[in-house]
Structure formats: structure tokens, C-alpha cells
């Protein structure tokens, strides 16, 4: 057996893979947070709950409507995104003129409502979600075993992340979006319907979270509290990366997933805390964050 630094290479690559998987979710969620924050100036505390909602939607559709994984991958983000749009219209739109903090408090309240409701109906235990037929099994790469589903998660989240980056940084719609982030009043004066754009942005960010939730369902089980702890880690990721840059959010997400995975190999006791420690170090060395633009 090959060993690296006294660790069997299979274990090392295995944890590296898990790190990349976690990193995919960090990247997808922090991307959504950054897009929402850019347009709405609100930190969406309900992001974790909406991620959970995506997984729960997939679970319910599979068991009660017979919609399989592939259907859920498309339908769940649409449904949860629509819920997001309703939330934006009913609650969030009244907060844009207020201090940032109220947005955080309101979405925190929403997160409690969503999580509490889910716990009442589903209980706190995890519910299993079967792997889709087509993605069972795996490849033997010689140095490690690569389950197909994990490879799929990493691939898809990379595609989604870079697709979002491309849409925002390289297309006309993205240019409107960036312009509206900088100066909404001016963009409105050019005849672009900024309020609708804001609503759709929130819907898109929420749908992204739900999409991540569906992808996570076969890996982590579906449980009401799956989002709550994840969102706090994602907050740390966002603090480290800074929300100024889309690419920054993606890179930080994947990078920290890998760091976490490696910590699990070399120093397992610290694997829960390592991201927060990295955050503390970044705050000491580069207070604005790795890709931040001040404040």
C-alpha cells in the first residue's frame, strides 16, 4: 500500500474527495449568498433552511408523487425558488431602505419557521434518500475508488458555479445585474425594471440553495437541521472570501472544503473547527477577506 506522510494514500484521497464534495456545497451556497447580497443588500440567513427545503422537496416528491431524482433536480429548485419569490414580495421588499441588520434578523426568523415546521412533520432523524439508479457504483482509479455519484456532484457543481459566473460576468443580463448592484437608481433611469430583477435574483439564489439540497440528499440523508449548521460554516466561508467577487466565492468554497478534508486526515479533532480557525487567521492577516473590497 502506498503511504504519503505516513497516511495510506487511499484514506488521503478519500478525505480529499469528501473535502471536494463539501467544498461543492460551500461554493454553491456562498455563491447564492453573494449574489443575493449583491442585489438585495441582505444576508440571507434562511439560505440553509432553503437548502434543506430543496432536499425535503426531493424526498417528498420521490415518496409521494413518484418523481425521481432527475425530476427533483429540476422541480425542487423551481418550487423552492418560487417560494423564495413569494418571500421576497411579502417580506423582504419592505426592508431595503432599513439597516442591513433587519434583513439578517428577518431571514433568521424565516429560517426558524421553516426549520421548526420541517421538524414537526419529519422529526429530527435523518431520512434516507436512495442514490439514483444511473449513478450507482464507481470507478477504480488505481489509487482510490471513486463513487460515481460523488464525481457527479463535483462535476455538476463546477458547471453550475462557472455557469453562474459566466452569466453574471460575461452576458448582457449579468451586466444589467452588476450595474444595478452598483447603482440601482441610475439603472432604473435607463428603463430597466430593477424591482423585478431583484425579485428574480432572490428567486435564483434560493433555487441555487435548493439545487444544492437535492444534490446533498443522497449523500447526507434528509434532515430538518441539515441546513442550520451548514449555513454557519458558509458564513465563515463568505467572511474568508469576501462577497465582492463571484469567482472568489467559488474558489474559497472549494478550497476550504479541501482544507477541511485534509484536516480530517491529519488532525481529526480539529475538522469541525478548522474553517473557523482559517477565518480568524484571515481576519488577522487580511481583514478585508481574500477577495474582498474593503469593509
Amino acid at each position, binding site marked *: 500500500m502506498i503511504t504519503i506522510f505516513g497516511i495510506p494514500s487511499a484514506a488521503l484521497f478519500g478525505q480529499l474527495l469528501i473535502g471536494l464534495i463539501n467544498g461543492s456545497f460551500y461554493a454553491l451556497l456562498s455563491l447564492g449568498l453573494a449574489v443575493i447580497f449583491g442585489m438585495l443588500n441582505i444576508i440571507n440567513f434562511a439560505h440553509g433552511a432553503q437548502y434543506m427545503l430543496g432536499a425535503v422537496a426531493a424526498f417528498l416528491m420521490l415518496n409521494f408523487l413518484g418523481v425521481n431524482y432527475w425530476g427533483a433536480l429540476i422541480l425542487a429548485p423551481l418550487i423552492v425558488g418560487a417560494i423564495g419569490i413569494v418571500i421576497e414580495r411579502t417580506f423582504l421588499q419592505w426592508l431595503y431602505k432599513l*439597516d442591513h441588520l433587519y434583513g439578517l434578523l428577518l431571514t433568521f*426568523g424565516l429560517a426558524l419557521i421553516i426549520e421548526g415546521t420541517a421538524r414537526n412533520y419529519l422529526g429530527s432523524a435523518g431520512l434516507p434518500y436512495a442514490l439514483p439508479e444511473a449513478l450507482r457504483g464507481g470507478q477504480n482509479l488505481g489509487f482510490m475508488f471513486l463513487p460515481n455519484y460523488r464525481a457527479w456532484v463535483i462535476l455538476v457543481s463546477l458547471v453550475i458555479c462557472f455557469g453562474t459566473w459566466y452569466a453574471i460576468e460575461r452576458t448582457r443580463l449579468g451586466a444589467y445585474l452588476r450595474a444595478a448592484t452598483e447603482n440601482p437608481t441610475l439603472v432604473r433611469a435607463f428603463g430597466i425594471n430593477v424591482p423585478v430583477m431583484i425579485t428574480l435574483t432572490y428567486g435564483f439564489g434560493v433555487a441555487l440553495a435548493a439545487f444544492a439540497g437535492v444534490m446533498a440528499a443522497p449523500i447526507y440523508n434528509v434532515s430538518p437541521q441539515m441546513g442550520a449548521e451548514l449555513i*454557519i460554516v458558509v458564513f465563515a466561508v463568505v467572511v474568508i472570501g469576501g462577497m465582492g467577487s463571484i469567482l472568489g466565492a467559488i474558489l474559497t468554497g472549494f478550497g476550504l472544503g479541501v482544507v477541511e478534508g485534509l484536516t480530517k486526515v491529519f488532525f481529526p479533532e480539529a475538522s469541525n*473547527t478548522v474553517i473557523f480557525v482559517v477565518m480568524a487567521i484571515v481576519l488577522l492577516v487580511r481583514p478585508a477577506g481574500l477577495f474582498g473590497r474593503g469593509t
Partner: protein
Amino acid sequence: MQASSSPVSATPVTVRQPSLLQRQGELIGFVIMVAALIVAPYFTYPLFLMQAMCFALFACAFNLLIGYVGLLSFGHALYFGWASYISAHAAKVWGFNPEFAILTGTLTAAVCGFLAGSLAIRRQGIYFAMITLALAQMMYFVALRMKFTGGEDGIQAVPRGYLFGFINLNNETTMYVFVMAVFLAGFLLIYRIIHSPFGEVLKAIRENEPRAISLGYKTDRYKLIAFVLSATLAGVAGSTKAITLQIASLTDVNWPMSGEVVLMTLVGGLGTIFGPVVGAFVILAMQFKLSSVGEWVLVIQGVIFVTCVLLFRRGIVGEIAALFRR
């Protein structure tokens, strides 16, 4: 809360005299509060009241930051919970007297507050909230891992012991008087801080930080001192809670606790002196009454959050004060 910038007086540190009406109102409020705390044990469970006073002090400490410096800490469970653990450990394992156990817990909170505060004040606004939350979560995992905290069980059967070696705190009346004394002392200290020249600078930072900087105040230092004070007082509340209820557990240090103290303060009224106290009693009474509905408490709390943010941003006390001002 920099958006609502009201002009800050240009002469440095002139302590604005509060209007006579405001002073009177605060005095009347204080008298009512003390009177209510004295008679309340005859009407309801003393243990509930003691718990509520600990949480009221916790919320007051939190309010010192959000209400008077405009900093939203979403990780105050760290100071409350860790102070609670350390004082419980000191009382149970090291055999400290209650006053020294509380002091040890409080010091722990102060040190944690200094470390977390130094990191958190490097960023502003929304990032500040996220950093404090993340650091608190880190310390939650540490508490979960460490042996002395007892993991899921927590530290149970903490002895109340003898205050100063001779006052028996196992007697419910003495315990009540002691908790009330701690609460009132903390409350008055916060009142004193808010109305001191130091407190005026804090409010200036809340209203307009760049202007406070241009007036020559080292605002980071003020923010850090306020943060440490707030964490320390949260530590007093946590330690006292551990001795009173004789338990320290993961609930005290986990993120829902941080959310709960925000909720208490928001319901009572951000930036009002009595708001956190009212909020703490209201929220705890609600939890007490609703303990049978299980997980729905979470939903109800969420609904209160949403309602408060959308409709009652001034909170209970803020609304009452606004009525009188008319």
C-alpha cells in the same frame, strides 16, 4: 445603524442632560421593576423568576452592543455558555464558593470577549454579525469535544454552596435575593455605562462612525471595550444561571441561544434600557407556557422575529416610550 445619522455635538464629550421627563420615566420604571421583582415570587415560581432575571441581564448585556454601539453580535451564546460551563466546573469540581465560581466564569467570558472582539471589530456591519456567529460556533464545537463539559449531558447537579462561606444558597429565598442583587447590580452598571461620557462616545459611533473618527476618537478601541464589557456581563449572567439552575449544558452555548437573546432584545426594544428585561420575561414566559407544543416553539419564535422586524421595530418598551413622547 449608520443610516440614521443625527448630528453629533461638535464639542467633545459633552454629557447631554436627559430631559426631566425621561429621567422621571426611567426612575419610575426602575421602581416598578424592583417592586415587581419583590412581589413576584408570591405569585409565580421563584425558579422561573431567577432564570428570567439571568436572561434579562444577558439581554441587557447584549443590548449594550446592538442598542448603543450598533453592533449586532450573533454569537453571544459563547460568553453566556462558556461562563456557565466554567463556573459550574469551578463550583462542582474545584469546590469554589459561589462568588468565586461566578467570578471565574465571568473572567472566562471577558477573555473570550476580548479575543473574539479583537477579531470581529476588524470588519463592519453584516460581516461583524457573521464573524461573531462563526466564532461562537467554533467554541460550541470545542465545548462539544472537551471532556469537562460532559458533552450531551452537560454539567449537572452543580452545588449552589454557601455564599462567602456562610450564606446558604440552597435556601430558595436567599438564592432569590442573591440573583436579584446580581441582576440589579448588572442593570445599574449598564445604566451607568450608557449615561457616562464613554457611553456618549459609543452612541456617537452608532450614529456616525466616520464622524466620531474625525473628532479624534479611536473608535476601534471604544468598540472593543464595549464588546468586552458586554461579553463580561453576559458572562455574569451565564455564571449566575449555572449556579442558580445547577446545570450548564450545550443549549447555553449553541447558536439558537444567540438567536434567543437577539429575539428578547428585539421584542423588548433595541436601545431601550428596560426593553431587554421586558423582552426576556415575555419570551421566557412564552416558552414556559408553550412547553407542551414542542417544536412549534421554534416556529412561533420565528413568527415573532418576522412580525417584530416588519411591524414593531421599536419593541414593547420602545412603543410605550413613543406613546408618552407624543
